[in-house]
């Protein structure tokens, strides 16, 4: 499958940043953070780590990793679930129970991605390219591809005024998104990279050095946007 998961992150210290790069991001520890609040509103249990297919969820970022599609085991939806609470019209204005129902209707297991992606964004090159360019899909919403039995769940969330995050595949991994040897590439701001370079030089245990070698060999210079853009071309050409 020619797509990668992307997860953007920011940690306050370089050791914490390296921990994410080595083991993978864990859920945000604060129960009051916006992600936890949205999960509560949408009945997403237990808390998850989020990744997005093809690009990051934010327009900018300080650091990000990309992983193969097989690296995430959990649930997927063809939109940003947090947007159902925050900005995706018309669902954001629905009753809480209706929003939860909407999310459940368009949530699948990652095992189903092999069948879901040929439907959206399709296996065609133009379809893939349009998705990777964050272009608006030709359908009004996911209901046009996967019709719900309940007509009240029809919502044109891929139409105006909603924007690209409303049609970005989201993956949810319970507790942690493991990285291990799956890291495809990563990037961060140049100042963070400079600190990482200095810190990796202090690693001396053979397994740590071997890991750091693999890590620096997968660094994409230029920051998160450069990572997205370089892998956009790879994904499009795949």
């Amino acid at each position, binding site marked *: 499958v020619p797509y990668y998961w992307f997860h*953007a992150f*920011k940690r306050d210290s370089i050791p914490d940043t390296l921990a994410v790069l080595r083991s993978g991001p864990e859920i945000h520890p604060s129960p009051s953070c916006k992600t936890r609040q949205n999960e509560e509103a949408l009945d997403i249990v237990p808390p998850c780590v989020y990744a997005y297919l093809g*690009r990051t969820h*934010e*327009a*900018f*970022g*300080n*650091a990000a990793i990309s992983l193969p599609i097989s690296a995430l085991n959990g649930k997927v939806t063809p939109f940003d679930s947090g947007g159902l609470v925050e900005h995706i019209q018309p669902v954001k204005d629905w009753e809480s129970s209706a929003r939860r129902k909407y999310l459940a209707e368009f949530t699948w297991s990652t095992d189903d991605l092999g069948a879901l992606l040929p439907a959206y964004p399709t296996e065609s090159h133009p379809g893939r390219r349009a998705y990777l*360019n*964050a272009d608006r899909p030709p359908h009004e919403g996911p209901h046009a591809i996967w019709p719900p039995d309940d007509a009240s769940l029809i919502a044109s969330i891929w139409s105006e005024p909603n*924007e*690209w995050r409303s049609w970005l595949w989201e993956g949810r991994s319970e507790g942690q998104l493991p990285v291990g040897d799956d890291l495809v590439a990563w990037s*961060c*701001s*140049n*100042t*963070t*990279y*400079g600190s990482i*370079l*200095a810190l*990796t*030089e202090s*690693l*001396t245990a053979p397994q740590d*050095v071997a890991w*750091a*070698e*693999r890590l*620096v*060999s997968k*660094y994409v*210079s*230029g*920051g*998160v*946007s*450069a990572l*997205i*853009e370089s892998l*956009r071309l790879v994904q499009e050409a795949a």
Partner: protein
Amino acid sequence: MSWHIVGIEGVVPSDAAVVWGVAALSDGVRLHNPRTQVSVPLSELPRLRDDQHLHVFPTAIEIDDDDAHEDLVVLMIQRGTRYETFFLPETGRLGGVVTHRRRKPWHYCVFRDQQAFSVYANGVASQVLTHVLYQPQVAEEPRELVLTALTLVPSHPELNAIRAYLDGRPHVARLARASVRSDLQRQAFDLFLTALQNDGDELQLKYFDGAAQGGGFDVDVAAHTLKAVQTASGAFTPFLERHYPFLEKAPPPRLRELRAASAEFHFVPTVEGRPLGERVTRYLCLHFIEEALRGNRPADMPHSESLDAAIRTIAQPAAATRLQQKRLSETEREDVHQLESSEPTSTWSPPLVVLGVVSGLEDDSQAELWIGPDRRFFVSTVNDGAGERPIGADVIKGDGSFLRQPCVFWLIRESKSNGTERFHLKQMEALNLGDKATVTALPSNVVDGAFVTDRSFEIELRPNATLVTPLGAFTDVTARTLDSARRWLSKYREACKEFELAASTRELNWLPPTKTPEPSSLVRVLLVLRSLSGGVALATDVVAGINERFKLVVRVNNTRREVGAHPDLLEFVGADNKVIRLTDRGRAFIDVYVAAGGATGLP
């Protein structure tokens, strides 16, 4: 619409010396990412800042509307830091700078795109390397400088090699090597690190039989051999200057030991009291000589008959004489086999998309292309070098109406090891009124046979028969007469030359000529002046430099004549005409000449 850069992607620590990243652009309504082309409402800016996805500037930087659609990269240099001078871009000389601002505590510089930033970053890497290689003593201080420079160009082979060398720990060398990307870059890293680390190595040449029969070596043969070593070393100088712009002039090979009775020559990179950079340069010269003795040559080095002859002489200075060499970093000697004259091998250039005209036909299968007043050659119109008919070449037949019509040609240059070349036409597009096209290469107007490459110029043939290019507009290009073609091609050539000289050598890439032309008398003066401090010297010193460097006997009057003939490039200082100086244009000219692969010493 008014466009502003409101921030930069990622975080900006207050103690950072250098920060760079994608610009965050605002049109007053939305926040745009010029790299990924996505945008979000501007109202999200505070959240993105608070979540540390981007850094917001205290005062936005206004940019022209035209620049707002570029892939803008922001560079921030903290003022007053220890290394500020290394990282401050020369905004006056550097191309691709959209705007720059000084606002305490930062100096901001906005580059048009990643390519423009890369030119700057590689220039910084060269400055840092020169500093470390030629400072009196290697101290602890440069490690921090090197690490900071690596945040601009993380995979730079030589910068990573110097990082490994300065640290000295094996695991840091592994990390530095892992930062380098392609196999070619890893080879460059390995070679440079070896050159840095090995100060006790020797290249040993030991002869047997023939001239060495019975012990000892005839003096004339020895002198002939040493001369060949010097010639070979000189032949690699332009290659070294091009690939290692941070190295100073290559010194001649240092003969440490001559064992006459054993017919052995020992050459060393290390000379007591000389800077690290000189050792590295000597090492690289000796390395390329020993590799040439094994039949290996850098792939992008132009063919040189004199190098071939020198290598053949070193390998066999007299009949029936055999050579063994102990290479640098090796312990055992190996046989050197006489290099046989063989069928010339070919190397192919990347595609060169150039502007020109078809100026003649030999028959329907051979067209003469004219891509500049002095650049004409024939190409096949039925075979693109791979057995296929060039795309678009079917217009070259019949009534000749295509002659001298502005065209864009996709060419591959085949360079043979014997110094000959031929061009293969892959595709051509005759430009009609209203047509637009892209040109990626310009014939160099400083070094014959070289091309400026890796650029992208959008051109348009307007309905009024004016060819509009980023280098200038050329009128009446569709008359198709000989005079008309000569006129606009000459003007185009002049515009190309101005572009070539105006741009910093860091901004441009050149495909070197297949065969390096010998330096003209003007170029010899410029080269020697360039190597002298500040580009200014007594005419007598210039003459001495020319005579030493090129083994010539020229006189002061010859040199003064060049000043009179080229007042745009050279000038006298003072009324007595004793001191000569490079003009700014002269300096630009000779910098381009070296970067484009012109000969800088004896062939």
